[in-house]
């Protein structure tokens, strides 16, 4: 299968190699068409966002107002902080110019004169790599003032990198915009949506790095070509990042709709020591986990995973073998979301803390059966009651892990004892109250 994003071409990160392999031709082609044509093609190609929500990219672009006095902005989201996701860094390292070319085309399509690539602060190395690629593209006249001669167009755009500083939440689009404005990265209430009221109150589109990197190939080879790859409702390839208990962890570019079992066994080399799989998280830690005995036939695309009652997320596949301590895993996940909650919404700020405390209590051997109900209750009270999707991200893994591995969690808690209400309340406190001792 042909790879769209990470082709096997040596030194593709160098601008001359990229150009000699047909690089920046798609941008030249794009400038011979109208911006509406470009949006139309991307819409028809069926390209969906690769950042987690899998929303139609062309449709998102079409929300941008055609006539406005305000400047328009494009943000390319390279915050990549979802545990289990490590795909965007491959693009920065291996094929940065395709992302830059995609950014130029997208800017033209939506009428943005400035694009910001938001990259997480920890990615020092990849920021340097991308900055070098951007500098080279400026020098060759693909970005900035020289675009007029290079592309024979009146359109001109600039691309800047904005370095984050360690906050998972900044991958959420409205939080990303606040962070870019030099503020605390608090998510904003929607509506208004970014296309109406984004960066500095101006129309803004936010796309994931991987989404943007697909754009040049769609323009070059046509939307029909792209729409025929993989699952018809979620076409293209995805960068699957496989981690955890597999022999060959890494990023694999495969068509959407590839069998999850193929990804694990055929590409990632199977599980060490041929152990059985207990659990798989298919798209980064915030997605509902799948049981190891229910992986047969599960396909990796947005539609199929919805049927399997999970979601594609960022395509970060985390594999756990039969000897994994799921309580420890879930407690670690809960700790992450508690740590990363921005603190704006009470259900998330407090709820994520409770989830972590209860799970740590179970991990310490002091949980009771009612704690399992409590976990689900707390998760349900977070879900849907927050400004941004971190609420769901924190609630889903807990809710679905406990529901789908009920037997596993039941084996780790003590039988419920009949306690007065006061004790029940006490059991929610931070101190892990030794319920087992009370029973005696």
């Amino acid at each position, binding site marked *: 299968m042909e790879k769209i994003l990470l082709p096997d071409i040596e030194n593709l990160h160098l601008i001359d190699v990229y150009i000699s392999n047909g690089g920046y031709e798609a941008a030249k082609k794009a400038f011979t068409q109208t911006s509406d044509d470009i949006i139309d093609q991307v819409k028809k190609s069926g390209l969906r966002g690769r950042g987690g929500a899998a929303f139609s990219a062309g449709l998102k672009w079409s929300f941008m107002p055609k006539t406005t006095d305000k*400047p328009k902005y494009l943000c390319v989201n390279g915050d*990549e*902080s*979802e*545990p*289990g*996701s*490590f795909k*965007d*860094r491959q693009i920065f390292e291996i094929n940065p110019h395709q992302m830059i070319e995609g950014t130029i085309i997208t800017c033209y399509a939506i009428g943005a004169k400035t694009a*910001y690539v938001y990259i*997480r*602060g*920890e*990615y*020092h*190395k990849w920021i340097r790599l991308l900055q070098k690629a951007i500098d080279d593209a400026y020098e060759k006249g693909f970005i900035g003032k020289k675009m007029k001669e290079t592309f024979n167009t009146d359109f001109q755009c600039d691309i*800047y990198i*904005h*370095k*984050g*500083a*360690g*906050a*998972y939440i900044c991958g959420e689009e409205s939080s990303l915009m606040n*962070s*870019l*404005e*030099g*503020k*605390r*990265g608090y998510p904003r209430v929607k509506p208004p949506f970014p296309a109406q009221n984004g960066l*500095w109150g101006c129309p803004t589109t936010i796309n994931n790095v991987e989404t943007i990197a697909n754009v040049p190939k769609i323009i070059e080879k046509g939307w029909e070509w792209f729409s025929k790859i993989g699952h018809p409702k979620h076409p293209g390839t995805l960068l699957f*990042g*496989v*981690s*955890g*208990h597999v022999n060959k*962890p*890494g*990023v694999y570019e495969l068509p959407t709709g590839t069998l999850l079992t193929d990804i694990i066994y055929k590409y990632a080399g199977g599980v060490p020591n041929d152990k059985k799989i207990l659990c798989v*998280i298919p798209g980064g*830690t915030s997605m509902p986990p799948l049981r190891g005995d229910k992986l047969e036939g599960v396909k990796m695309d947005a539609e199929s995973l919805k049927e399997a009652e999970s979601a594609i997320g960022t395509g*970060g596949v*985390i594999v*756990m073998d039969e000897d*994994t301590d799921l309580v*420890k*895993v879930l407690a*670690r*996940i809960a700790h*992450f979301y508690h*740590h*990363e909650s*921005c603190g704006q919404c009470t259900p998330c700020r407090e709820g994520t803390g409770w989830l972590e405390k209860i799970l740590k209590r179970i991990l310490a051997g002091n949980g009771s059966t009612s704690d399992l109900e409590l976990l689900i209750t707390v998760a349900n009270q977070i879900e849907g009651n927050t400004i941004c999707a971190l609420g769901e991200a924190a609630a889903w893994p807990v809710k679905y892990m406990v529901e789908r591995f009920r037997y596993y969690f039941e084996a780790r808690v003590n039988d419920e004892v009949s306690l007065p209400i006061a004790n029940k309340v006490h059991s929610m406190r931070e101190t892990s109250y030794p319920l087992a001792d009370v029973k005696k």
Partner: protein
Amino acid sequence: MEFKFTEENLTRIEQEVKKYPERKPAVMAALYLAQEQNGYISNEVIKEVADVLGITAEDVLGVVTFYTMYHQKPMGKFHLQVCTNVSCMLRGGYEIWDQVKDKFGIENLGITEDQNFSLEEVECMGSCGTAPMIAVNEDYYENLTNEKVEEILESLKSTN
């Protein structure tokens, strides 16, 4: 302690400012530069950043306390960041965390007496496919084993 940006850093901040339609967004870059120059973000640093960018010290403080990569106390010459999130944990992240902790006898966000090493338990660094990992200042060390960690730490020690 008094803090003033060097001329070079002031120039770099002005370059950052040019990216944006206003001065405020350069606060994140300015704080990185200040941290590089001063070692950590002190109250004096916050005031200087605010003055240079024409924003309030409260604006700057808000940013400093929101993001984990700005430190409000001195960190070691080598800041060791160990990821213990799920993908690393499944491949021995906690073993490495314990190893580093024991070697230097410091806890999370602690610093050795000679100020050479500090330690931080970090969230997912995007090294899941090459787990477990440690970041030393800006550099990633990946696909680690306890032996490799020992080697890295020893070589850092000897570069002092």
